[in-house]
């Protein structure tokens, strides 16, 4: 790194500080101004606990489904070039561009009993509207790009030569994938899982259209805000943030502790 003048230092520090404060300030304010008596009170409220738990597990379920189907796709996108690759990558990123209420309406039209997919689900005894299933379906839609993009980049950072050497020495494809590619891409994949889960746990727009009830935490927060005002909605928000933070920190600690060879690790550049 070259020597920097104080002008440069202040420029970079000032610009960066704006972004960092922009993220931290509202969250900090929410914590600072929270009425902790009500926070404790709502923590005992079964309706709140039910919504928080639903948020956590539906986000987990949607992430699991995405990981199962998205991993092979991410691998192919990282390793092969083919005719429609750019188009597929653009399609994968569509949920980021589409307003979430629009996504909700699109999914609702697809899974409503009048549509083929919806009627198929209903005939299987499943109810995709106003149900946990509906929540998971909405979460999958909005979270897909976060997992697939991160995992694709993680796979791309693993040298294909390592896989070639493994195959060359007698290891079949599956063994090579689980013992070479996956351990080396683990950090990036974990980051994809966290992002995907976090996106799902914070989803409101799509869920509120497909499944107002049973309520997930963001819908409950909105419901309390609309009915009782800020005082009774912010405590749930504080709890949701706390749960997300704990999950985030746990996974990060786990990821850093376990993986020394993931994407962005300094040993890669050595």
């Amino acid at each position, binding site marked *: 790194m070259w020597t920097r003048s104080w002008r440069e230092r202040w420029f970079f520090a000032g610009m960066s500080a704006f972004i960092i404060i922009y993220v931290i300030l509202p969250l900090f304010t929410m914590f600072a101004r929270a009425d902790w008596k009500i926070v404790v009170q709502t923590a005992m409220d079964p309706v709140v606990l039910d919504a928080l738990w639903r948020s956590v597990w539906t986000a987990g379920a949607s992430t699991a489904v995405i990981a199962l189907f998205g991993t092979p796709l991410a691998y192919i996108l990282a390793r092969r070039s083919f005719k429609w690759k750019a188009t597929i990558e653009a399609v994968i990123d569509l949920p980021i561009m589409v307003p979430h209420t629009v996504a909700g309406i699109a999914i609702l039209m697809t899974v409503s009993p009048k549509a083929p997919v919806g009627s198929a689900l209903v005939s299987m005894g499943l109810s995709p509207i106003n149900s946990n299933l509906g929540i998971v379906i909405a979460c999958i839609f909005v979270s897909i790009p976060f997992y697939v993009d991160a995992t694709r980049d993680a796979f791309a950072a693993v040298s294909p030569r*390592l896989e*070639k*050497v*493994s*195959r*060359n*020495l*007698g*290891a079949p494809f599956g063994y090579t994938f689980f013992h070479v590619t996956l*351990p080396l891409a683990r950090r990036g994949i974990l980051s994809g899982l966290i992002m995907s889960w976090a996106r799902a746990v914070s989803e409101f727009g799509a869920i509120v259209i497909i499944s107002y009830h049973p309520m997930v935490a963001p819908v409950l927060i909105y419901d309390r805000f609309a009915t009782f005002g800020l005082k009774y909605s912010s405590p749930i928000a504080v709890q949701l943030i706390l749960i997300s933070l704990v999950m985030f920190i746990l996974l990060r600690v786990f990821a850093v502790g376990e993986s020394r060879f993931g994407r962005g690790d300094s040993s890669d550049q050595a």
Partner: protein
Amino acid sequence: MIRLEELSIDLPGFSLKPLSMSVSEGECFMIVGPSGAGKTLLLEVLAGLQPASGGKIHLKNRNITNIPPEKRNLSIVYQDYALFPHLSVEKNIRWGLRFRTEKSSGRNIDHLLDLLKLRDLLHRDPETLSGGEKQRVALARALAVDPDILLLDEPLSALDTLFRYELLDYLRKLNEEGITILMVTHDFGEVLALGKRVAVLIDGVLEQTGIVKDVFNYPLTTEVAKFVGMSNIWTAEKTGEHQVLLPSGRQLSTQLNGEPGPCIVGIRPEEIVPHVDDGYGERENMLAGTVTSIVHRGAIMEMTVDVDGTPFKTLVTTSDLVRKGFEVGTKAKLEVRTESVHIIKNGRNQK
């Protein structure tokens, strides 16, 4: 041992023209060519890591063209070692063993660890090894599975000079132990140091195959001639028995014979001996000219002498340069022995 039959590769941006060649058991066969000639790709096709577009590969009289890589028993060693960074040296070396059923592998490993002096490194992390150590680990890992052929992809080019000589010795030892080696490189020096037979691959075309010394001394095409360091190449005219006429009108005697007509003449720079101009005029293959440039080529200097408009490149040592007083602008006399004048393209290079 391995036989390629009209093997071709067709990929966007690169194609390998149908190529036939064979490597015998215990041989150290070299494929040499400039960077980007498709040498690594060829090795990967042999190992089954890239598909061939046409032709066949036979290993021990078995057609392996469509067999998956894990069932071919050809080990590849890459220039960048490709050691598994998440595993210790020992686990790297033992990687292929779990997929083998033969009981001899354990003994083989012990022998390899001694031969390649790896015992002290077994518990190390690959990242902490030097280039030479990494390459030895990669070699041991490739040989642990007792492959039919060891495929080497420029194994020396990423190494420092010191490690390069060391690894050359190891490779020689392995070959002496009966291991069949097929190595690709862009450095003809390595070919001379290690190989017995060589194939020259330029722009996806197999230009020449043969004994290393023959290819070095008697290149069949100008591409090969340039590649093996024959830096004096001119279009000329074969005028009569053992005579060629250079474009400058200068006549050169050669030991080669052939039909009169247009041809290409090649002379290795180290086969031209520069003398101080004695002022006695020219004799047969003794040409007088003026030094036009002197350039460092590592430990040796390349001196260009202009003879009637034809630049002759020759090599001189620094001490020779001082002793004979060569400088840009001084006169020099070049001695070209008749056996050093090669005719490259006159149909064939007749020996």
